[in-house]
């Protein structure tokens, strides 16, 4: 793959780079156009009194989020987080060290909101809020995928994602939003999903898929849309409807429901699990996007809500839904609300409702990429860490050959794919390729050692990101697959036991 930037070298031993000041200072995503801004209630362009409005917004957020207030004060500059961010490891830019990313805001916080910064700015590194500072925020708060890896290692649990979200919220509120995220949120408001896929197109796509499955395995597996008799509403990232390899995951879910005899449906009103309101730190947007799902569930009269494979969507569903759009007292209390598709499949396996022919996947040696938002921002099952156990259990149930990557690159220490947090856009290709380095490094190791052929994931963003960036590292784009593709391929269909 040719690139206009230097592709990092995958070495045999992972190393921490020396800092190269300003290495990624040029990286910035496209700025939101006026209509992308106004659809979300943000000013259309940089407002004249941006300075005062930015500070007022910062003050508001400091009073709204304990996390932000405590994190601004508590950092001791111990440096424990400095080598934990994949964007620093991949770019060498010191401002991509989590603490330095926080400091972009902290030095302004100190200048205007603390005694030390007001009277002794030079001592504590406090600076005035200038246009340059704002530009720097725009650049580096869009070099953070809000993956929370840094928060695992910080002795005070400082989560840079919270600060990035606040930074983006402040920027958008003075008129400098990010095009990619804001445009997508606008589409969900208007049409119901990130892709802007209207109901008829969705219905067509699902019919095509049903035919495809029929041709493939000669079973009438349905992918129902707006079916009022359904017990389960499946909400999944819209990429699952036709992006590769996502769609094979969707087929996998359909096969599981079919085989378990669970009446289920998709909804054209809530045709999107993704919720980019989280990425831009705007809880009003997050609530508005999520509200469609509650509406659809009530409208269709379903008893359960199941969420498809998507990292941040699962974080929003698991951690935020109950607060934002709950309570879910209209759903069946015998099931967690919401439930992850992996939990649903896992429970069916435990109950003996699914049979597998693992040999169907014998052409693969599989490893598993823990998605950051699932790993560090949510849970599955009823024990801490279930989010690591359950997807692996599904892979083991459907594959004979599974290996894990290096311990510090999986589970709670997992590296982000490099494209999360609203950065999955072509105007950030360099950042995405470089940010993928630590994951590619760990993948490279298991390829060398165990001849791994495929990496399974449970996140639409991870899947799209790896499809795009793996070729830059001379790896096949089709290495990345859905966990439910493995499940679907190995699932024994039909009633003969």
């Amino acid at each position, binding site marked *: 793959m040719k690139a206009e930037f230097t592709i990092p070298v995958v070495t045999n031993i992972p190393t921490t780079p020396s800092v190269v000041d300003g290495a990624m200072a040029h990286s910035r995503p496209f700025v939101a156009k006026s209509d992308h801004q106004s659809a979300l209630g943000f000013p259309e362009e940089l407002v004249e009194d941006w300075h005062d409005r930015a500070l007022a917004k910062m003050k508001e957020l400091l009073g709204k989020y304990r996390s932000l207030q*405590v*994190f601004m004060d*508590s950092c001791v500059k111990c440096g424990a987080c400095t080598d934990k961010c994949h964007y620093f490891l991949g770019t060498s830019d010191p401002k991509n060290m989590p603490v330095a990313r926080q400091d972009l805001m902290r030095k302004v916080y100190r200048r205007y909101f603390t005694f030390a910064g007001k009277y002794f700015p030079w*001592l504590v590194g406090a600076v005035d809020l200038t246009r340059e500072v704002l530009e720097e925020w725009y650049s580096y708060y869009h070099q953070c995928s809000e993956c929370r890896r840094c928060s695992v290692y910080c002795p005070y649990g400082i989560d840079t994602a919270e600060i990035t979200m606040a930074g983006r919220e402040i920027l958008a509120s003075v008129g400098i939003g990010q095009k990619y995220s804001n445009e997508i949120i606008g589409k969900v408001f208007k049409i119901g999903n990130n892709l802007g896929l209207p109901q008829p197109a969705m219905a067509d796509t699902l019919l095509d898929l049903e035919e495809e499955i029929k041709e493939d395995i000669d079973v009438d597996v349905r992918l129902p849309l707006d079916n009022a008799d359904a017990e389960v509403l499946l909400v999944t990232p819209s990429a699952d409807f036709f992006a590769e390899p996502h769609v094979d995951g969707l087929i996998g879910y359909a096969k599981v429901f079919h085989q378990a005899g669970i009446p289920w449906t998709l909804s054209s009103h809530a045709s999107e699990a993704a919720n980019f309101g989280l990425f831009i730190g705007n809880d009003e947007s997050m609530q508005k996007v999520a509200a469609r799902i509650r509406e659809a569930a009530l409208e269709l009269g379903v008893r359960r809500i199941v969420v498809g494979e998507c990292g941040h969507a699962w974080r929003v569903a698991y951690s935020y839904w109950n607060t934002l759009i709950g309570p879910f007292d209209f759903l069946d209390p015998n099931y967690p609300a919401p439930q992850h598709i992996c939990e649903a499949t896992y429970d069916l396996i435990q109950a003996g409702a699914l049979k597998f022919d693992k040999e169907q996947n014998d052409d693969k040696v599989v490893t598993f990429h823990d998605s950051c938002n699932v790993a560090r921002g949510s849970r599955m099952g009823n024990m801490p860490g279930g989010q690591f156990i359950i997807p692996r259990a599904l892979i083991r149930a459907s594959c004979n050959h599974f290996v894990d990557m290096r311990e510090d690159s999986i589970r709670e220490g997992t590296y982000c794919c490099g494209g999360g947090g609203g950065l999955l856009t072509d105007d950030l290709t360099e950042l995405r390729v470089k940010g993928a380095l630590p994951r590619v490094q760990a993948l490279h190791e298991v390829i060398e050692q165990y001849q791994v052929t495929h990496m399974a994931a449970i996140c639409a963003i991870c899947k799209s990101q790896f499809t795009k960036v793996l070729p830059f590292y001379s790896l096949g784009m089709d290495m990345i697959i859905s966990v439910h593709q493995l499940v679907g391929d190995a699932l024994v269909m039909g009633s003969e036991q």
Partner: protein
Amino acid sequence: MSIVTYLYAGAFYLAALILVVGVARKVGVYARTPAPYKIPTTPAPITMPGVAWRMFRETVFFESLFKASKWTWLFGWIFHFAMLIVLIRHLRYFLDPVWLWVAIISPFGVYAGWAMLLGLSGLWGRRFLVDRVRYISAPSDHLMLALLLAIVSTGLMMKYVWHTDIVAVKAFFLGLLRFDPAPLPSDPLLLTHLALVVILMAVFPVSKLLHAPGVFFSPTRNQVDNPREFRHQGIRSS
């Protein structure tokens, strides 16, 4: 009584006031600010006792730091633990009679003083030797370490080189507690040691030393992972 005694008595009262009021105000702000959403860094405990145990491991063993960087953990943990012992040793200046457990721990305070020196030197060394840590260090970060090192050094020098009249020092502090100061010996080493402590107390609420109360309010550490089971409504106002 000398002017020095009055000066130091006044300084200690003022510093103590700044420390207590300053920290109380910050804690008030932390406590009042809502935590509207569930954001524990997972895997997280799913019960309240589980969270208490997580906070215990975090504040006593520095668990996350241990995961992150063994050297920083080693120096940081040695420094903090040694400081605790040294502080306990210093309780004898405020207690009459000295409690038994304080008396038992006190002798270790001397070694702990050396351990503090070691820990602080290691932490400061990192600020010069590791390019990433050098990059994030502001003047205040260096000064804070310098201040602590100076306090420890003057303390150790009083133990080993120029002794001071510790009976008089004790009388002074017991006097402070009764709002009836007794004369303070005026040898330079003691006065330096105490002046630096006064500075440390006064800057506590306006510096990164706020990490001490802050860690208990960190939502990524102190929240229970149960958003599906219980509807979290952390918004108090609005």
